[in-house]
């Protein structure tokens, strides 16, 4: 830091955070309450949130339509805080189309509804292979697409974040929304696995 004679790494993180937060409040950019709210929302974000959305879409046709039309609004309908998050788009798997999500440029991920990405999502290997050899990648996860199913790899490069609405497993007939939600994993919602199928 020019002029102060201090080196950045010598300032304890908490003091630095406190000073920045106080400056932001003083300048009217944000308030301590808003920062606390955002930290709480970030901590609450986890795959269970996205799973609730998927389970509801499987059991409620109106919600399904709302989810496909506007993922951000659909998340807010379930009380998931989306303020400040990039717009959320939802990709609908069908009997003949499967979606796989990747960010080849960095690690864009629908964090507001799935939490932090799994470590391998950011790996060079996943990012490269998801676009170059997606079916080989899926096979290593034990995800075998039936013949005739087209694959659409969604490279999340810009302002949107993408989540997959997978097909409801046939074996889940009669399950409650809560049971269905407990079935859905983070990997199902980015398309590397299929709900109800164990990963390799």
């Amino acid at each position: 830091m020019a002029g102060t004679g201090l080196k950045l790494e010598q300032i304890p993180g908490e003091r630095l955070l406190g000073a920045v937060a106080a400056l932001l409040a003083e300048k009217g950019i944000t308030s301590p309450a808003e920062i606390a709210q955002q930290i709480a929302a970030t901590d609450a974000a986890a795959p269970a949130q996205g799973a609730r959305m998927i389970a509801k879409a499987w059991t409620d046709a109106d919600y399904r339509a709302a989810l496909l039309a506007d993922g951000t609004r659909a998340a807010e309908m379930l009380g998931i805080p989306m303020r400040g998050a990039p717009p959320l788009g939802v990709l609908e798997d069908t009997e003949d189309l499967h979606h796989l999500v990747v960010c080849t440029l960095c690690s864009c991920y629908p964090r507001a509804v799935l939490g932090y990405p799994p470590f391998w999502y950011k790996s060079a290997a996943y990012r490269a292979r998801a676009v170059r050899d997606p079916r080989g990648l899926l096979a290593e996860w034990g995800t075998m697409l039936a013949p005739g199913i087209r694959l659409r790899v969604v490279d999340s490069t810009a302002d949107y974040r993408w989540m997959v609405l997978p097909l409801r497993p046939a074996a889940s007939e009669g399950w409650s929304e809560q049971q269905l939600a407990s079935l859905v994993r983070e990997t199902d919602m980015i398309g590397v696995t299929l709900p109800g199928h164990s990963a390799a």
Partner: protein
Amino acid sequence: MSGPKEARRLPPGSLVRVRDDWPELRGKAHVRTPHYLRGRRGRVVRYLGDFKNPEELAFARPAALLPLYHVSFEQPAIWHEGDAGDELLVEVYGSWLEPA
């Protein structure tokens, strides 16, 4: 009301080519268009909205709003691997697209 901006917007189904441009070779750059798509032909699936140009935002410069499109590309044509019919669906800013 559709203004001149809406009139210029690419409708779904438009055939486009991603500009074969490499700003990162000319100096500091922040580019959200993946290398593997430069010069490639695709088809607009839909307009996603207007967003500030990240190539300017990254350097804290004034950033114009750009239309963002979801564009579909044939996967095997790009990588010479994969199954016919497989596709890549990528967000591309209008400034990177030209008519194909």
